[in-house]
């Protein structure tokens, strides 16, 4: 990559997908652009790998005089996302090759990608906000891609919460920027928030706005319905990369280094609650993609729980960000691979199914934190900033994670075609599995500064992995006795909420209808009632004698006025 300016590379990361998106609009070229999807994240990947930390590039004409930059944390997020997008793109290129809405898919895929990349490299709040909006809103068409009623319903929930999140974020940024004396640089805003006298409202708006995207309990309700609704590759990026936009936002904006006992604790509680509850809810699902989506909520709950602890204890950024970045990378790739795997399950050749299940099991176990896996590496790292209680909780969460992933294994479809899956899909899946299982090891040193040592204290780790073992045993036992998992509706709270909303809307419409009709009656004023006396009035004035009398009176009046 010698000879390419890093800054240009960085900007290409965002603009290249946008350029591709424009091509998708062209009537002839559009449907074919689906095959170009794997090309879209390549500049981002290159930037994550080659551009040095601290690369900055101003975009003075764009938005509010914004800019982009790259540092280590950002590079991890960017790189992980780029890998996932590339491989998912490859998968999608084949998966949706003959789809009738391929052009649209490609268009929004590229747009979301651009937004996702933009979120990770935005140097200022405006660029971040724009990118975030791109991610949030343009993902909607991906969610409802198949136009099935369920998808549309899921999309509706998604878009409503996304808009609310946008608005909360908008308010937070405005207030943050105002507090920072009008500067919109993320660094300035964060430093200001870390200073004294910050309104906790800003914090909560940030948490709410970003938390929605990241599936923070109880704002997560859209996630378990939306992610599964999308086509497989879209689900992969949604769960793998796009939720990370929210996480990244939290990492980028929250005021690390100062203690926020109440806010921090609350966030921690919500996060850890999500970690467990979502996993349990996920274990009660029957659709593998839904199970995975709940797992995502659970995993993101873990990250946000750690964030909460860090906020409550005033942990400095340097001690937190790299670790969480690593965990995010691990989760993103693994979850992406799992989603692709769900897609592969129905096309995998019958005779090599065990190999497939092996791969899936490895991914699941890695995610649950089986010692020696990449997941264990990330989980071990994350226990550091999580504090004692947090670490304990994380350790115990392996049980719930294990259960939900076990549930996944049981729900995987088992259609058995007799021809090989398309090589592109195959390649994408396998590559992603490899990346998921190896990437944390590869970048560990670069991120945390120390070499990974997965074998250290192995025995202790194994002992500490008892919840996972328990989970496996429980799952096996359940399978053995043929016990059915309890059934929970997708999106848990969503259905009651939906019913309430429907009722409210019906009431509202009834109200607005009456309003509208009364409106009409008030705004079209009737002609004033005809005055029957007009003629008489006119006649009175027209009468000569009356005029003469009036004349005399007026003259008299004038005379007396003059005297």
């Amino acid at each position, binding site marked *: 990559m010698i000879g390419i300016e890093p800054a240009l590379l960085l900007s290409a990361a965002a603009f290249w997908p946008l350029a591709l998106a424009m091509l998708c609009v062209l009537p002839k070229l559009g449907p074919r652009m689906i095959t170009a999807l794997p090309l879209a994240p390549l500049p981002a990947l290159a930037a994550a790998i080659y551009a040095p930390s601290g690369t900055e590039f101003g975009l003075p004409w764009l*938005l509010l005089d914004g800019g982009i930059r790259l540092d280590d944390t950002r590079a991890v997020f960017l790189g992980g996302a780029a890998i996932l997008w590339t491989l998912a793109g490859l998968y999608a290129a084949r998966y949706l090759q003959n789809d009738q809405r391929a052009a649209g898919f490609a268009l929004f895929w590229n747009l979301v990608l651009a937004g996702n990349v933009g979120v990770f490299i935005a140097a200022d709040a405006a660029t971040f906000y724009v990118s975030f909006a791109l991610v949030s*809103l343009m993902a909607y068409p991906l969610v409802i891609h198949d136009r099935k009623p369920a998808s549309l319903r899921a999309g509706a929930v998604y878009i409503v919460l996304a808009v609310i999140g946008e608005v909360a974020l908008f308010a937070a940024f405005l207030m943050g920027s105002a507090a920072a004396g009008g500067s919109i640089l993320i660094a300035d805003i964060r430093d200001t928030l870390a200073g004294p006298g910050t309104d906790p409202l800003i914090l909560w708006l940030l948490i709410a706005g970003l938390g929605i995207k990241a599936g923070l309990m109880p704002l997560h309700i859209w996630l378990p319905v939306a992610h599964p609704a999308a086509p497989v590759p879209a689900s992969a990026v949604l769960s793998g990369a796009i939720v990370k936009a929210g996480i990244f936002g939290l990492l980028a904006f929250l005021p690390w280094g100062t203690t926020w006992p109440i806010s921090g604790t609350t966030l921690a509680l919500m996060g850890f609650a999500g970690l467990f509850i979502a996993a349990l809810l996920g274990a009660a699902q029957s659709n593998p993609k839904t199970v995975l989506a709940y797992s995502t909520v659970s995993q993101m709950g873990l990250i946000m729980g750690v964030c909460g602890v860090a906020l409550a204890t005033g942990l400095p950024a340097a001690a937190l960000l790299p670790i969480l970045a690593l965990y995010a990378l691990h989760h993103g790739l693994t979850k992406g691979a799992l989603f692709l795997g769900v897609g592969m399950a129905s096309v995998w050749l019958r005779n090599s199914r065990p190999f497939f299940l092996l791969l899936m099991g490895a991914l699941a176990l890695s995610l649950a934190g089986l010692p020696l896996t990449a997941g264990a590496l990330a989980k071990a790292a994350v226990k550091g900033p999580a504090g004692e209680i947090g670490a304990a909780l994380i350790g115990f969460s392996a049980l719930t994670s294990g259960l939900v992933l076990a549930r996944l294994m049981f729900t995987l479809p088992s259609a058995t075609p007799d021809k090989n899956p398309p090589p592109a899909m195959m390649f994408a899946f396998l590559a992603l599995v490899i990346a998921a299982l190896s990437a944390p090891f590869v970048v560990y040193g670069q991120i945390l500064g120390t070499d990974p040592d997965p074998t250290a204290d192995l025995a202790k780790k194994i002992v500490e992995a008892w919840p996972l073992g328990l989970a496996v045993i429980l799952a096996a036992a359940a399978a053995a006795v043929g016990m059915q998992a309890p059934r929970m509706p997708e999106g848990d709270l969503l259905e009651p909420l939906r019913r309430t909303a429907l009722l409210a809307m019906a009431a509202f419409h009834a109200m607005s209808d009456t*309003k509208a009709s009364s409106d009409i009656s008030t705004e079209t004023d009737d002609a004033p009632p005809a005055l029957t006396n007009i003629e008489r009035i006119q006649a009175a004035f027209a009468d000569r004698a009356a005029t003469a009398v009036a004349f005399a009176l007026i003259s008299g009046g004038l005379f007396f006025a003059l005297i």
Partner: protein
Amino acid sequence: MTAFLPLALLTLPLVAALISFALPDTRAAWRDATNIIFALVKLVLVGFLLLQAQGGVDFEWRYEFLPGHDFVLRVDAIALLFVTLSTFLWLIATIYAIAYFERGPNLARFFGFFNLCVLSATGVAISGTAITFFSFYELLTLATWPLVVHKGDEKSLTAGRVYLTYTLAGSAAFLAGILWLKALVGPLEFAAPPDLSPVPTLTLILIFVLLIGGLGVKAALLPFHGWLPQAMAAPAPVSALLHAVAVVKAGAYGILRVVHDIYGAGTVADLGLGLPLAFLASATILYGSLRAVMQNDIKKRLAYSTVSQVSYIVLGASLAGPIAAVGALVHLVHQGIMKITLFMCAGALANRLHIKAVTELDGAGRLMPVTMASFTIGALGMIGVPPVAGFISKWYLGSGGLEAGDAWVIAVLAGSSLLNSAYFLPLLYRAWLLPPQGDHAPVAELTGGWNRMLVLPAAVTALASLGAGLFASFPFSPLEWVSLIVDAGYLR
């Protein structure tokens, strides 16, 4: 020579109007050509003025039209902002209108008044004194009335009556206000606020109420907004130009002028008037949005949306401080291009697919994809979705509110954004995601002269609103221009 450039700005539409009136319908092609050519020429002239104004050159033409009362046309930076907007949109709307009506009846009249409307809007923009402003403001009322009643049916006539009732009453209040104030402090030039110190506070407040009340009618401030939804009876190009540029903007622009040029933002704040006005604007924003949610007629929904959106400008004007002023001014432009996009699209849908109600919108995206794409961009902009221009306005308005210490503004903006979503997103949903109801064939939007002229203007403005947001920091972008104005010490 330079003193007459402002006059030239007015003369061009006047001549276009006269030619339009004069040419019979059999010469429609000539009329169309005239309109487009004049709009182009004016655009060039405005471009020249922009370059000059950037160098700090102001053009002024002054004429004592009555003893002690000067008629002043001044092309300064803030005027150019509005002039540029109206000129650009004039061209767009003209092209659109030509295609919209094709070769319908009574078009000589329509285009004549259309041009007069533009003349008035330009005049409002470049007025240098309160009384000059009033003259053009009234002319605007008069020039738009024939457009509102253009169709001549009962609905249009009612709308015209309501329109006049509201606006003329408002004008009278405004006139009373400026004359009263003028009687107390002398001529009211839009240059530096006059010394108001000798005037009793109560009088000042009363006059302010008269002025704002008068202008608030056109700006559709609560509770004077009632005419606007009714005026929807007018043909689409009229709604487009009326709502985007001409009438409501004149009111909002006038409020800006009153607050910043006649009273001065400081005085307004000292008198304790800024906050009530801001509250009123906020109430209008929320009320308009709420009402918009309830409408089934697309144009009415857009109209209530306008009620809401224009009050953003008022809100920005009422908050003391340069950032809010930037927000107000920039929203003047942004709302203009976004709303004209929406109305042109709505008109195109009604014209080609006979879609008038929200419930009929199903599948419109498949039948007229380009139009609906433009509509979508406009709608997203209205919601404040970045990077469409509306986001920039809201950003500055919110920052301005915080700068002024009025954090509740954020809540208003947030609430309004949510409501905007509530009334725009279902439209997009129906248009893009639901199957078409009738048996309409897709419209060949880009083939055939009329179709193209009907569809492309909206696409252009949609792209413009996208560009205005995306390239907000580009020199000559609305935001940059506004910042130039504010940096130059204006509106402080």
